[in-house]
């Protein structure tokens, strides 16, 4: 968000607010990217776990709850993992949706700000 070039274009409070908004969205965008990465990893881990469970012979498996490994029947673990998968997938979906909306809003603000300031403003990542 560095401005260079001439000071001919007047910056109004409205412009400033748009720049602020853009800054916020950009921050949120990076947060979302991290959150999505984590959610995807969790999802993959759960997927791996349920695949391993199918292959496992044991009737009772150790299932981590908090800091301890509880001995839980295989079927129960299966349902619990399914539930966890559902929660994380829904969460992931929500995050992806938010990311799309953030990106759309950023594109809109870019249009406005570049339209007014042209080369005097830089809204791209380094």
């Amino acid at each position, binding site marked *: *968000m*560095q*401005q*260079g*070039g*001439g*000071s*001919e274009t*007047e*910056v*109004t*409070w*409205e412009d*400033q607010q748009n*720049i*602020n908004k853009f*800054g*916020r969205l950009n*921050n949120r965008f990076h947060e979302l990217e991290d959150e999505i990465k984590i959610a995807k990893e969790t999802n993959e881990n759960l997927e791996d776990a349920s695949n391993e469970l199918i292959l496992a012979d044991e009737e009772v498996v*150790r299932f981590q*709850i*908090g*800091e*301890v*490994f*509880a*001995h839980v029947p295989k079927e129960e673990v299966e349902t619990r993992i399914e539930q966890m998968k559902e929660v994380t997938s829904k969460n992931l979906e929500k995050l992806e949706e938010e990311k799309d909306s953030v990106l759309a809003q950023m594109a809109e603000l870019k249009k406005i700000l570049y339209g007014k300031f042209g080369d005097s403003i830089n809204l791209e990542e380094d």
Partner: protein
Amino acid sequence: MASSSSSTTERRGIPGAQFVQDVETYLTQSGLDVNSALSFLQERLQQYKLVEMKLLAQQRDLQAKIPDIEKCLDVVGTLQAKKGTGEALITDFEVSEGIYSRAHIEDADSVCLWLGANVMLEYSCEEATALLQKNLDNAKASLEVLVADLQFLRDQVTITQVTIARVYNWDVHQRRMRQASSTSTDS
């Protein structure tokens, strides 16, 4: 619009950045020359950055605390679910790093919660759940406030950065005009 621009309120001790409508008026009003105005703004920016680091550390702490509480709730929930089934909950738990032992937990009516400050208190499962849930809600609420604080702070950082750029550009522009007028009178 102009009146709202000067509404530089503060938020939890963070002073708001003043939006500069017109650089020249700003400089004459504040009685600063370009260099002292720039150094004042730079100093402000540094202070904002310092507060940002502090808030980010708090945010990280809270973000770590929330899953911890959720884990605790999960365990208490498991104990409660087992209660009354007649079955014992068998768990492998870590005694020391890398060393595990096995525990049979039969009909646990209560759990002990570590309250901090070297205090541990025994609670019934219901009470423990309620307390943990309250802690979880509090942590989430604090996180929300903290995120709003951070957003406010970042807005002030952006305003200050833009102001610095504008004061600087105004100065460059001013110099150029002076140079242009002096060369034109020379010739």
